[in-house]
């Protein structure tokens, strides 16, 4: 019983991290109609930027989180403006709209990884912050870093949710996510909104990167596996649904931990993909994806 409870804690805590990255992926998907295959790299770069902020300014961890989010957000806007904008505006044709975007994402992913390599090298970097030993509840260990992640993730979720539902700008973002032409006719400056969405999504990825930094040393290859898990999370929760992304992350984390715990542990990573594939085949809209557009 203790073991099961342990597994649940582990699954939920890693799941929240998946959920945070999935949040950005979901946001980009609903806003720009693209599945961003380079998002894992922005998560990685965000994590590195967190270290850079700490080492340059010496600010505490929390401010490094905010700083990395802002810088990565701006970086995301630049990437979107310079590269993706042409594809989304170009529209039409199978090469450009659907496949072009996906292929472009892959290209961007390896290119960004190489840029990070040139900037920070291949060595894994430890995060200059320590949370100390976990809290022990009887026999069960609860790492503080995961508590921190949980709190931050919930706060970010709430802020994002409030922004989207309670503010005029948030309303415009949702409008753009649903229909760009119509929103343009409402007087919404759609190009700016698209950049905003992309920037916010990248900032979320950076947040995940900085939050996971202390438990996962930062290195240039860290993005890929995380991206796949986050995709699984986004799909399970329903692409385009923000609460779904977090829920999906937790489900993926739980599922893979429990499978690894009670089935063959060596195949741990495959379980997440199996979940992804099964959910996509059986219920492509995911668990919370009620009003999600099923298109590329």
């Amino acid at each position, binding site marked *: 019983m203790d073991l099961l409870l342990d597994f649940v804690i582990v699954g939920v805590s890693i799941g929240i991290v998946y959920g945070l990255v999935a949040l950005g992926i979901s946001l980009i998907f609903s806003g720009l109609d693209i599945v961003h295959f380079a998002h894992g790299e922005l998560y990685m770069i965000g994590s590195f930027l967190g270290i850079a902020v700490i080492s340059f300014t010496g600010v505490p961890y929390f401010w490094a989180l905010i700083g990395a989010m802002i810088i990565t957000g701006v970086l995301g806007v630049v990437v979107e403006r310079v590269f993706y904008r042409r594809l989304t505006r170009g529209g039409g044709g199978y090469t450009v709209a659907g496949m072009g975007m996906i292929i472009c994402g892959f290209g961007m992913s390896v290119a960004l990884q190489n840029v990070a390599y040139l900037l920070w090298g291949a060595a894994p970097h430890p995060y200059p912050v320590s949370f100390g030993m976990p809290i022990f509840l009887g*026999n069960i260990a609860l790492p503080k870093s995961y508590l921190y992640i949980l709190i931050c993730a919930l706060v970010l979720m709430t802020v994002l949710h409030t922004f989207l539902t309670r503010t005029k700008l948030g309303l415009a973002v949702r409008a753009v996510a649903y229909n760009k032409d119509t929103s343009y006719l409402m007087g919404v400056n759609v190009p700016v909104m698209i950049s905003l969405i992309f920037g916010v999504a990248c900032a979320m990825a950076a947040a995940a990167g900085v939050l*996971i930094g202390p438990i996962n040393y930062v290195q240039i290859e860290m993005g890929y596996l995380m991206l796949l898990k986050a995709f699984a999370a986004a799909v399970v929760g329903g692409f385009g649904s923000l609460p779904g992304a977090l829920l999906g992350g937790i489900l993926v984390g739980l599922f893979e931990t429990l499978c690894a715990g009670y089935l063959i542990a060596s195949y741990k990573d495959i379980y997440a993909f199996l979940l992804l594939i099964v959910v996509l085949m059986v219920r492509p809209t995911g668990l919370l994806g009620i009003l999600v557009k099923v298109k590329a």
Partner: protein
Amino acid sequence: MNRYPPKKTGNGVRNALLAFTAASLVAGASAASAGVIKVGVSLRMKTETGEKYGQMVADEFEAINAAGGVNGNTIEVKLLNDECKSDIGVANATKYAYQDNVHLFIGSSCSSVSLPIVDVLHKAGVPMLIPHSTNYKITLKGSPWVFRVPISSRFSAAAAAKYTAENIGTKIAYIWASDAASQADAQKFYEYIETYHGELPVYAEQFQEGELDLRAHLLKIKSLKPEALMISAQSQDFARGLVQSYEVGIPPSVKRIGGSAASNRPAPILSGDAIKGVFFHAAFSFADPDPKVQEFVKMTAERYGVANPDHDFSQAWDSVHVARVAFERADLALTDDSLAADRAAIRDALGTVTGYVTLGGGVVDFCADATPECRDGNKTPVLIEYTKGGEDYELRVIGKTTFDADFGLAGMEEEAMKLRESLDN
């Protein structure tokens, strides 16, 4: 820093004499006798220190050239990156063998890359000096062209296993990362315990490289209450596993053991205090008070900015100097037509290198037979314990063991035969 042992074997003397006569004969015939010995290096360069190993190899050969070369010949080094991917490694080896016409191949870092390269170079007839790969299968293949400077996993893991079984216990749990070296480390470890102490592993599972969360494994291990836990993985995965083993609450009384990659620089830096008390096996420790080691450490700090070099550093250095010994003893014509003969000469000369004392204190003894006994040069693993983690980590040497050349080969005849068969295919 010239400290290879004196040439002891008659073979070496004869070769040297032959080389001398040949050299003087050629010198008499034409003034421009100096040839170029080409060395091809293929390593995993896109890592923190990978490039520095390669650079050091090139620099060391350059230093030899600057000091007058080898028997009047200069050495030309080419470096290629293989990314620890076998297809790139094979391409590099093929390029060296057929396009660049190298006389000696040095590589690779990763066992999974060295394994297929053995076949390629066997076919091409190029001597191969391995600086880092430890997987026991590499020499088990029985190619006459293969020589290994580092310690085969059949020795090193056994040394750690022997120490563990005698001092800690035999109820051991294992997790290892999905790379060939880590896997071999863990596998040889529990095979030793099984063979000599009759105890099966409490837990033995593999995880993916770069895996974020090892706690699913560790929780299961925690519930099995082992006496020791071996985490065999590349440094960052090892560090993560180590920290998480404390996070899930495996008590400190359970001894943590690392694989050979635990010696790599990032491991103690990343895992901080968690690494204290962890021991692992390696070929070298920078904490060795031996002046020769301290001189080497000073050199790497000055030239490459690495104040605490790991054993991959020392082995790359050793490989260069083993190669030099061979070059000195080989009878080389170094003309366009003599490529095959020169390669064979270098191979034979490598086979005569004995008594070369490595920086780690082990002795490299090669012999002419194409057997693991002959080609696994160094048989002396060092057991090292971390006494302090972090940037300025500290180590202490627990001890060294030298194994018999045929240790660990019992029961491997069938595997060896299969490997040898595939070599000829």
